[in-house]
């Protein structure tokens, strides 16, 4: 299959307007992909109507026991499954879940490349789960 240049457009999650045109702001290319990935990571079971299989629900992890090695493995497996099924535009390289005890922080690093694109540069999405108050 011939590789194409990146041309991905999506609307922005924050629904802000473009200050010049007044139109809704747009996410493009790798930003749109990362936004999509983040949406998937935060999606809980039944958030998607009639499709309960989409279930990573990272924000629910906040209420689990923190230093739990099994939990880290479960999160990795879930992320790998969801990306393989629901985000066919990327090729997952690795998922790293790290517990930073001193900061009460769960750091999730997703490394991926884009499929069928001219550039095969590795991309990284980092999601940090920490208490805010």
């Amino acid at each position, binding site marked *: 299959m011939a590789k194409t240049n990146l041309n991905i*457009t999506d609307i922005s999650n924050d629904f802000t307007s473009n200050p010049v045109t007044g139109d809704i702001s747009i996410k493009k290319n790798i930003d749109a992909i990362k936004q999509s990935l983040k949406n*998937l990571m935060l999606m809980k079971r039944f958030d998607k109507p009639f499709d309960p299989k989409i279930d990573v629900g990272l924000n629910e992890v906040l209420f689990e026991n923190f230093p739990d090695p099994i939990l880290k493995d479960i999160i990795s497996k879930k992320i790998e499954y969801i990306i393989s099924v629901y985000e066919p535009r990327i090729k997952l390289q690795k998922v790293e879940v790290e517990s930073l005890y001193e900061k009460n922080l769960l750091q999730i690093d997703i490394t991926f490349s884009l499929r069928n694109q001219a550039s095969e540069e590795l991309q990284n999405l980092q999601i940090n789960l920490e208490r805010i108050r």
Partner: protein
Amino acid sequence: MKPDFSKLDYSDIKQNLITFLKSQDKFNSYNFEGSTLNILLDILAYNTHYQSLYNNITFNEAFLDTAQKRSSVVSIAKNLGYTPESSRSATCAVEVLIDANSNGGLSSYTIPKNTAFKVNKDNSVYYFYNLNDAVYTPNTYNETTGLVETYTTGSIVLKEGTFKTVNFVINGSNPTQKITLRSTNIDTNTISVRVQNSTSDSSGINDVWEEAKNMVMVDGSSKVYFLEEGPDENYRIYFGDGIIGQSLNEGNLVIITFLETNGEEANEIGVNDEEGARVFTSPSLPNTTVIVRTPSYGGSSRETTQSIKYKAPKAFSTQERAVTADDYSIVLQNDFSFIKSIKCWGGEDNTPPAYGKIFISIKPENRAALSNTEKNAILRSLTKNRAVVGIIPELVDPNLIYLIINCDAKVDIIKTNGSIESLKTKIISAINEYIQTNLDVFDADLIVNELENTIKNTDTSLLSVTVTPQLEYRLTPVYGTAVDYTINFQNEIVKSDSIDKPNIKSSRFNYYDYQNNIRLCRIYDNGSGKLYLAFENGNKEYSIGKFSNIDLTENAPEYIGSIDYETGILSLTKFKPQINEENNPFIKFFANVVDSDVFVNPDTILTIDSDDPNSVVINFTETAYRKPIK
């Protein structure tokens, strides 16, 4: 892009939106589940799906055919002028006797209405009330003094339930207010409405207010109330507006009394009532004897939603008038909940024709025929300005043919765990339930294949089931009088080639033999179209035909009639039985029929006597069935 509005499933709606977005090139992430645009499509599709489902339910509930909620069905029925039937109190008739000299003599010659009568059934206490005053009249006199010894009320009607009263003061600011009777087991036939001027002024309390069922006679001065079932399943009462029905004024006190009933639980009370074991007592009537004249009947639950859907359009078409034969069926079914099946036909269709009459045949629930009290109540109901003038209704008992079910069952003995008796009980119960559910009404025939499947499904140990039905007709003759009778089995009867293999057999009864001695005998067929008597002597049965093998002639003393095997009609000639051995009012005739499927005429009911231990005969063939090992 042309949207497809016929598809209302969530996935189809979302696909419609995606197809729409394909026609533009500004956004292209709509097809990936994580994209924000896709999430937006989820919301839009979900909203559309929700709305379409809501609309679907709304429109379904707007029509009688598709409505599911009781409140919707009741509301539509209201437009058809139909009020759903409430629970009905069981009714019984009793006679109250009192000794004239007991307890210093009678204090009052009247038993006031709403006097309680107490009775126990299955460890529960039930109360019955007389809804009208009952008056004592002299019953027996002392032959010496000529003074009255006992007084009787005669037969008085009692209704089961608990009396409830609702008081309501009319608020003038809301003239159309409705009074809710908060009871799900109310019997609306027992509602009594009185209106007095105010809480302190009792004038008007004795006026009778009646339920308005027919608007023709109602005007602005008619003391009527209107009854309807509300959306909360409680009945509501409201009054007229001064044009249709008299209106009430601010401050009027409405007093409503009614019976809250236990429905069918209170049926068949008083069946075992006998001297020395009276079932009814009345706490407020000491020293009285309460004799049951008619055991309680007719108690029932409130009308089901399905029944409302069925009856409301039919009630609308009859308009509370009994004109055609179907009208009679509908009007009576609305009035009497104990009717399981009903058949009405005009006198011109009767055999023999009886012009100017309507014949009504009713099969009540759990019984073979109506009691005389029930028949009188039905005839009274028809004469309430509803039947056509000049047409006389006549109640006839349904023509019943009883089934004797012979069941041959092959059983895997290993699967039964040796418990053949419990299997037998299950099969008998399944047969009785099948017949009670599918037959036991007019216009129903026995399809043996269905019954066999039902029996086979009762237990996995049953490998095969074969049912051979036999028919039983119960003839109630006039004992001691020679009368011609016709018994119609309505199905072809097996014709045998030998007199020793009869296919018609009767139960035993007494009959004068040709030497004028009363002897027990039965009736058989001879295989050649003739019926003969076979007298018993020393536990053996004898007849000219059977004993001496002489061809039976019509002049032979044992000849009693003929049989048409094809039509299944038996004609008994000058049949004069004496009271029969079992002291039953009827003589049973059994017939072996050619076809296992039994079809009967529209005026006949196929049923089973579940109290008769011989009504189901089961023959088991035991086998240890196992699948071969591959």
